[in-house]
């Protein structure tokens, strides 16, 4: 809570494009590169006015608009340098908005940023499906946890489909939904052509632990597409940590950013603080986060202000049951005897899983 305030005052942002930065120096660099660069000779000037004068004097051209600026902020007359010179009304409006929903702001203003970020924090899944519980009730759980190969991160696009091998689906799943479909299909989106290729190459039967290629996992330099990566990496992560424990720490130490992978809950608490946070909203408590714990993480993230790791939590964090299902179990809503929300045996099993997981959580 207090954090938000702090953030509002400590975060700097670019008047021209609303993008946020952690450091004013970086902001100035950004402005020079994006907004104050001469379009003819690419010389970087320090202010918009300076750039206009340079272009006029050197190249004999008129520049009236700041490049890459939002509408209404394109004037070269206002002298902006970093956070200096921003008109008070714009400043107030910016922070007013910020106040309402600080975390989203980043996404709104500059989506690529969160994406970048995403790549870093693949760990989250480790939280939801904490390795420990997994070990505790292996069969069920194992089946519920998708086991995409650790290798995906390589081609960024893939992670969208590999999930197929997930969950209760037996090994053949890969080719299976898709080949069927083309039969009648008329719609343009046709995954079947490309995906089999990709998939065959990358899918290992769920349950098997693919040798974790650390190199692949550590994609700290996320390209813009990484959004996808972030998606993929969580799986490889938790997996290795359960089964291939030894190898993990190595991985972890090898690449700074990946630490997350292993622990699942490092960065979590900085909604939009560090550009490195995006995915790790872990509900701290249910993280089994084994031995490979937070230390490395914290070291990594040190520059960001937040102290403890588990501050962020999901208000509803029951991954095994929806709010409605839980609500139904309230006696008030159970009109008839037999109407428990769990009608099938499967469901009862689910519930047991849940309970054991809760138990695990407590332990933490």
């Amino acid at each position, binding site marked *: 809570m207090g954090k938000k305030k702090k953030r509002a005052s400590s975060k700097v942002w670019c008047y021209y494009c609303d993008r946020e930065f952690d450091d004013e120096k970086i902001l100035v660099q950004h402005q020079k590169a994006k907004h104050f660069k001469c379009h003819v000779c690419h010389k970087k000037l320090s202010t918009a006015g300076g750039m206009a004068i340079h272009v006029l004097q050197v190249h004999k051209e008129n520049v009236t608009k700041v490049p890459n600026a939002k509408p209404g902020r394109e004037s070269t007359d206002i002298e902006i340098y970093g956070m200096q010179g921003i008109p008070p009304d714009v400043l*107030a409006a910016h922070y007013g908005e910020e106040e309402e929903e600080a975390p989203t702001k980043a996404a*709104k203003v500059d989506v690529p940023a969160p994406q970048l970020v995403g790549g870093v924090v693949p760990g*989250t899944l480790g939280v939801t499906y904490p390795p420990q519980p997994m070990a505790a009730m292996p069969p069920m759980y194992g089946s519920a946890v998708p086991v995409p190969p650790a290798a995906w991160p390589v081609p960024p696009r893939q992670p969208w489909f590999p*999930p197929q091998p997930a969950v209760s689906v037996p090994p053949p799943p890969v080719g299976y939904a898709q080949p069927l*479909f083309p039969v009648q299909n008329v719609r343009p*989106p046709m995954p079947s052509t490309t995906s089999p290729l990709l998939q065959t190459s990358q899918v290992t039967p769920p349950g098997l632990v693919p040798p974790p290629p650390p190199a692949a996992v550590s994609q700290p330099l996320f390209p813009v597409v990484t959004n996808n990566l972030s998606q993929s990496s969580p799986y490889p992560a938790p997996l290795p940590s359960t089964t291939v424990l030894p190898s993990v720490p190595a991985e972890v130490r090898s690449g700074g950013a990946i630490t997350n992978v292993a622990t699942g809950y490092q960065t979590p608490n900085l909604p939009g603080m560090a550009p490195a946070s995006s*995915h790790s*909203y872990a509900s701290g408590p249910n993280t089994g986060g084994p031995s490979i714990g937070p230390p490395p993480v914290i070291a990594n993230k040190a520059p960001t202000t937040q102290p403890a790791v588990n501050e962020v939590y999901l*208000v509803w964090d029951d991954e095994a049951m929806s709010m409605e299902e*839980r609500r139904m179990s309230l006696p008030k809503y159970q009109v008839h005897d037999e109407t428990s929300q769990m009608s099938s045996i499967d469901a009862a099993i689910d519930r047991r899983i849940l309970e054991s997981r809760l138990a695990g959580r407590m332990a933490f």
Partner: protein
Amino acid sequence: MATFGAAATATENPNKSVEVAQPPSDSVSSLSFSPKANFLIATSWDNQVRCWEITRSGASVASVPKASISHDQPVLCSAWKDDGTTVFSGGCDKQVKMWPLASGGQAATVAMHEAPVKEIAWIPAMNLLVSGSWDKTLKYWDLRQPNPVHSQPLTERCYAMTVQYPLMVIGTADRNLTVFNLQNPQTVFKTIQSPLKYQTRCVAAFPDQQGFLVGSIEGRVGVHHLDDSLQSKNFTFKCHREGNDVYSVNSLNFHPVHHTFATAGSDGGFNFWDKDSKQRLKAWSRCPQPIPCSTFNNDGSIYAYSVCYDWSKGAENHNPATAKTYIYLHLPQESEVKGKPRVGARK
């Protein structure tokens, strides 16, 4: 700046929306507007399905309770038939009832499951009703027959559904998103794992059927395209978070005209977004209670949202004595729901 932020704390209706008269006595589970007129349906945990007529004259909006039916147990979902004559509702009594509202007829059971029915949709092009249940099936119903035309097994309990013919996306408890091409409903078009790492809460198909949105309990929305060549356009973004609290995204609704969308969450807030320019168009003050469901009317001139307890903080945070349920109507300005081009965007 603090003054604006603090505003949400005290008032019941911080956004000065229009309150719907005689709201349900327990939380609202779904809201649906008639595709033909401004009739609003709300299903509730008090077992009732209620209908209001919403009338507008200029800026003033009034709601008149019209009729209601009841289920034996809490109702979870609702849908209108495309001609606006009939309402379907499904819930914990494992049934779907058909309520011929226009003719004033009695409600009749038209579909049965083995567990509560979480989602339903009417598919005009097929003249069928589809129902998704926690019994891990989807069933398609020809309303004249007692048995389903087709029963489609799902990998897990159905948590969310969206239909934009011929695209249908089902979100299940295992975070799978099962995509169907309704021209061939018996075959799974493809199953993908949610781009989000936590429980799927809601899905919404793009109006152009090229993809869908998915919202999770982890205050995040994924924008996903079906076409593999568009995968690079996929992204996720955070929302409905406050400080260290990460709230569920409970509702995703596309604007029927501008194709921007609204999110609503357990934090009591709702926002309007434009996925194409990746911008938030408008954020509203948080209500003091969660928003479990919301919807646009047929022309997008009214955004209805319910403010009541959604169970996101469990039974221990539910006080039946003080819990109140509201349904609000917000009349969006065009600027709030119309996408703006993103200047300097790198496409």
